[in-house]
């Protein structure tokens, strides 16, 4: 479907059955279940096209924490 310049696309997302079983076992309320599945779907759609590797993720995470720590270190007294 074309809306002006914006293109929308329907992407199928497979919800693993484990997520429903685990969520039920933990006692996630029915009201929260749809939000949980929506969040999982959004994350999974993004990750499905991601080229990020574990090594890069680790490196990025370290850089982010080091930058934050540079700002916070003076308050650790």
């Amino acid at each position: 479907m074309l809306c002006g310049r914006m293109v929308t696309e329907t992407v199928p997302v497979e919800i693993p059955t484990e997520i429903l079983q685990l969520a039920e076992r933990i006692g996630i309320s029915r009201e929260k279940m749809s939000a949980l599945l929506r969040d999982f779907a959004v994350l999974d759609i993004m990750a499905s096209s991601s080229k990020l590797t574990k090594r890069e993720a680790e490196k990025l995470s370290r850089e982010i924490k080091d930058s934050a720590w540079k700002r916070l270190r003076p308050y650790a007294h």
Partner: protein
Amino acid sequence: MEEAKAIRTLVLDTNVLIFSLVRSEGITRVSLAILLHDDNCEVTAPASVVEELIAHSQEICDKAAITRPLLEETLNRLLVDITLAPLSSYQRKLHEALQFVRADAPFAALALVRLPSMIITYNKRHFNSRRLRHRRVQALTPAEALRELR
């Protein structure tokens, strides 16, 4: 009548958020989605570290080859369920947290002010787990945290 469970504080390490963007890390996405919606948990993170994560958005997009609007929409959606803790709320424990870790001290400090608590991380070895356990802080991976909460 069913007894109400105590609310557990989960301090979310930045590496869990970033690892959820790795295609093969389906278990991280499942665990994160469940933990963020568990009524018995409050998920929190140091605001300064999350601000730094947002400041690195373009670098993350470049490495992951994803668009910035997609990353921002996803982060915004996840951050709705994460309480961002200002420095003032954990500053008094920052010095003490340095006994356990260095750059990860904000996560340990936040965990120390919200006892009993769990640090959800992929860098367990960075946290001196035994000493933290004595202070009623557990350092666990997202999957371990799920098992613990079941």
